[in-house]
């Protein structure tokens, strides 16, 4: 019983409460409080990582379990393993960067910062909660601040995008709630505790019911990921959301879906997932190829990055589906572990890389060109060398260049998934070629060629923007060159989860 995870979880909310007391006019104080809070939370998460025993990364650690609603069997149960801990640290890091980036947001800064802090608690809660009741609460809590962030600070069509985002994901949440309830009412003793339910597997005896419950979870998670064909809320939400909102949306909120598949769907409903793994894999591969094709068709840079997320999350789901399909086939367990490792690695890589890409889009759009049209630029390299270098780094990382973070993830996914779904993996590999083509074509249109005289006066990155991006750039390169420590922690956790799949 350490309380460390509670500290990580509630620091942002405490900061939000403090902000409530700060008068609206004291903008500088508001920003400082937000910054101090997020940095404190980041340090707390690093402290948690320091207390985490990486040698046993496969078991849940830093556990806190307190009776909460005994009549329902709901407890306040927090813990992390090698799957959730990296995601927690990624969340706290990116929130700090979002606050730094948002320093210049002048519209209602107090409400803005409070919402970001509440959002942080919501996202962290999903990753650390090990009780379905608690999990569901945080799942919904993370939805509402984002709705307001898009709806108030968004672009011209913010109302449409916010409502679409909210309703679409809410439908998914309700489906998931039904799934949770099916599992709950078949458990004995009745409990919402995930660890207990993973051991119990209440639906193990009834495949039809398990498949019904799986559909509930599937809709909830697949809409969040988003998987094809549930992805169309994503480009709208991204295009309209303010930059920091887009960053958290892409980097963290999408991961809630894939995290749910790995953390919950695999160990809780292995037979049902196994039965439907083919369908999930096919949708994942469609997402890979189709996402890349549609990304290529975009002329709005933000939309292009949004569709590249559909493409990249498809790789994650291919890895997860492969692992699910390998369930019950001992010969394939190692392939499953490799694919699942890749999938989790890709969650982190996509968080870092796409987070950086959305910041970079914001840098050019928010305070410089006020346009995101890929064809409106040209030759910016001459004028903005640092910006160009970072953008090219992020795009090359995104298209899976060896030596950068994305490659480790994609290579592992392909290595594992090929042993289980050879044909689908080859189709997914064509997505890599298309991804290369559209990112390079984008670089060509924006940065290469003669300088468009319209942008002759643009300034390069300023200090604050550089500080926002530097940690992400360092992560992309460092993890790309030396992935062993991160992969080690993830691998232990994946083996733990696959043990539960049986």
């Amino acid at each position: 019983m350490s309380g460390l995870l509670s500290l990580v979880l509630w620091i942002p909310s405490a900061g939000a409460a403090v902000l409530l007391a700060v008068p609206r006019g004291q903008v500088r104080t508001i920003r400082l409080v937000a910054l101090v809070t997020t940095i404190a939370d980041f340090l707390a998460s690093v402290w948690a990582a320091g207390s985490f025993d990486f040698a046993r990364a496969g078991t849940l650690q830093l556990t806190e379990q307190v009776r909460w609603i005994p009549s329902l069997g709901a407890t306040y149960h927090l813990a992390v393993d090698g799957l959730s801990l990296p995601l927690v640290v990624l969340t706290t890091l990116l929130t700090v960067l979002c606050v730094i980036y948002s320093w210049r947001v002048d519209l209602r800064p107090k409400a803005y910062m409070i919402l970001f802090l509440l959002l942080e608690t919501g996202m962290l809660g999903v990753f650390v909660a090990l009780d379905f009741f608690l999990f569901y609460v945080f799942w919904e809590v993370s939805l509402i601040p984002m709705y307001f962030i898009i709806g108030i600070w968004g672009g011209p069509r913010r109302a449409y995008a916010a409502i679409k985002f909210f309703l679409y994901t809410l439908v998914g949440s309700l489906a998931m709630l039904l799934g949770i309830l099916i599992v709950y009412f078949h458990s004995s003793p009745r409990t919402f505790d995930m660890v207990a339910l993973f051991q119990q597997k209440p639906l193990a005896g009834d495949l039809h019911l398990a498949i019904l419950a799986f559909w509930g979870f599937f809709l909830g998670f697949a809409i969040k990921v988003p998987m094809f064909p549930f992805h169309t809320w994503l480009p709208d939400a991204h295009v309209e959301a303010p930059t920091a909102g887009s960053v958290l949306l892409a980097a963290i909120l999408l991961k809630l879906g894939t995290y749910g598949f790995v953390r919950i769907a695999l160990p809780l409903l292995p037979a049902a997932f196994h039965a439907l793994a083919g369908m999930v894999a096919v949708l994942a591969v469609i997402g890979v190829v189709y996402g890349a094709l549609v990304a290529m068709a975009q002329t709005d840079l933000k939309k292009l990055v949004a569709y590249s997320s559909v493409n990249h999350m498809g790789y994650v789901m291919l890895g997860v589906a492969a692992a699910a399909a390998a369930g019950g086939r001992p010969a394939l367990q190692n392939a499953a572990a490799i694919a699942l490792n890749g999938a989790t690695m890709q969650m982190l890589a996509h968080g870092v890389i796409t987070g950086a890409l959305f910041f970079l889009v914001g840098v050019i759009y928010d305070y410089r060109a006020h346009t995101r049209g890929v064809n409106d630029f040209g030759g910016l390299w001459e004028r903005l060398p640092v910006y160009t270098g970072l953008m090219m780094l992020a795009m090359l990382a995104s298209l899976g260049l060896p030596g950068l973070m994305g490659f480790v993830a994609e290579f592992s996914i392909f290595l594992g998934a090929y042993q289980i779904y050879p044909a689908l993996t080859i189709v997914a590999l064509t997505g890599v070629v298309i991804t290369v083509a559209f990112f390079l074509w984008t670089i060509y249109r924006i940065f290469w060629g003669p300088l468009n005289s319209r942008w002759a006066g643009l300034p390069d990155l300023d200090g604050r923007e550089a500080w926002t991006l530097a940690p992400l750039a360092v992560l992309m390169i460092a993890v790309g060159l030396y992935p062993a420590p991160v992969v080690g922690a993830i691998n232990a956790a994946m083996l733990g989860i696959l043990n539960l799949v049986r």
Partner: protein
Amino acid sequence: MTQAAWIIPLLPLAAFALITAAGPRLPGRGAYVSIAGIVLAGIGGLVVLGEVIGGAHADVTYTWAVLGAKPITVGFVVDPLSAIMLAMVGVVASLITIYSVGYMAGDPHYPRFFAYLSLFQFSMLFLVLADNFLFIYAGWELVGLCSYLLIGFWFERPAAARAALKAFITTRVGDFSMMIGILIIFLYTGSLRFDEAFRSIQGGALAGPLLTAAAVLVFGGAIGKSAQVPLHVWLPDAMEGPTPVSALIHAATMVAAGVYLVARTYPLFLLSPNHAALTIVAYIGGITALVAATMGVVEDDIKRVLAYSTISQLGYMMLGLGVLGYTAGMFHLITHAFFKALLFLGAGSVIHGVATNNIKQMGGLAQVMPWTAWTFIAATLALTGIPPFAGFFSKDQVLAAAFAHDRVLWALGAAGAFLTSLYMGRLIWYTFAGTYRGGDPGAARAHGAGHAPGPHESPAVMVVPLAILAVFAVFLGWAGAESLGNPFGRFIHFAGVEPVPPNFGLLVVSIAIAVAGWAAAAAIYVWRIVPSESLRRAMPWAYTLLVRRYFVDDLYAWVFIGLGGLVVRLAGLFDRYVVDGLVNLVGWLARQVGLGLRYIQTGREETYLLLVFLGVVVIVVARLVW
């Protein structure tokens, strides 16, 4: 040194990091740092080569990551094959980097150029040392990245930017195939390390047509990187990059990586049933050798002629490997690296002197730039296989192996050899003989300021590397000479694949073919017995076919940009109107249902009463009817 060979690639990497961080503030604006990195690496490479000749060997492995229950081990191997490549890359790259100091002088992005060169050198040396598919693929992609960055070095020129894009994407198509090959091999052997994977293939873990497929898929990567037919289209366009880059990357080293890959994974090809995979390698190589040479005959851009020549020569290397001439293919790789680097650097020196790439605007340059001219001619003699220059020995070994294996392949190679002499003779006469035809004052501004008007010899920093490379181009061939006991063959050979015995008659035929090509060039361009204009008039279709490069570029443009673009646009529309349209339709339906139900939920008692009454009526009627 052999055990610590992994340090060699790190030297240029350190140079790259230093130049990126401190750039213009470094001595020589980064150039000296870059030179120090590669020269030290080159010395290291030569030392390693010496030690390996003395019998040293190293294979250093460590665990990359533990995935599942199984560690994936990777590492570096130092054997004769990687040692000779290390030494070759180190020496050639050192000379080219030194030459670049002169060639790139005055460029606004001077430090950036040397940073890229260093990054490239790191990637290439890393690739060469890899003992596993993961590292070779990583190095493979990184050299591709550097090639992309350097082709597009003058990124503000649209042609350069387009060429860079084309090169990266085309080679990526090959890499896609290579990745599938790697996945198949990993699936059946459970290892990414060459020795382990080949051992278990030998043990039967992967056999039959699937092994052939895996080998051919891996070869697909080499087709892309080594610009073999049908993925050759990127290399001529890559000449948009600065000339030292063309010399280093697009002639001497990176493009040869494809050949190296085949040599490195040779067991894969050799074990394929009936040598099917090797036959494919040989035919792709033979066809490429001939087809690329034909296109070289009608090209007017000096660098592009050399680019076609490179494609063609890479074809010979593949041909050599494909016909069991393991030693011959590798020997041609090494000799070619030196004389082709020399040809490109010489071309760069010419371009530096006359500020145009068009050989028809040159002429008479032998008088004004003697060093450039004579070294260039030495390299040309090597390329065209005139004894006793380097290329004669290596190309003859390739042709001899082809002759012993399959006469059709020999014929392809021999026809290519004739054309090689023809297009190189044409190039030499247009460039160095006759009188100067240039003098367009506008052209001089194209590549930097501060040059004396009119053609002039290049500075010593450029000429000295030419002279050193010329020594190799003239004498290196003796390393493979049978009369000296073929020391190269004793060093680089593949157990179980014995070189064919020398065939004196064939040797004479080879020389005759090479001389015939020169004679044909002289007949057309010097003596003008059949002037090129009349040839062009006599065969307009042939000329069009060659100038349009067999319409392959047009075909790809039509398929990938035209058709592909259409697919992309359709996907965009489908997503917007069908997928998202359905989502919005659901929303709209929900809203309409709500609006419709509003009329029932009016809040007036009389409406509700009416509904209750109607309900009763329905129930009563229903009861009476049934």
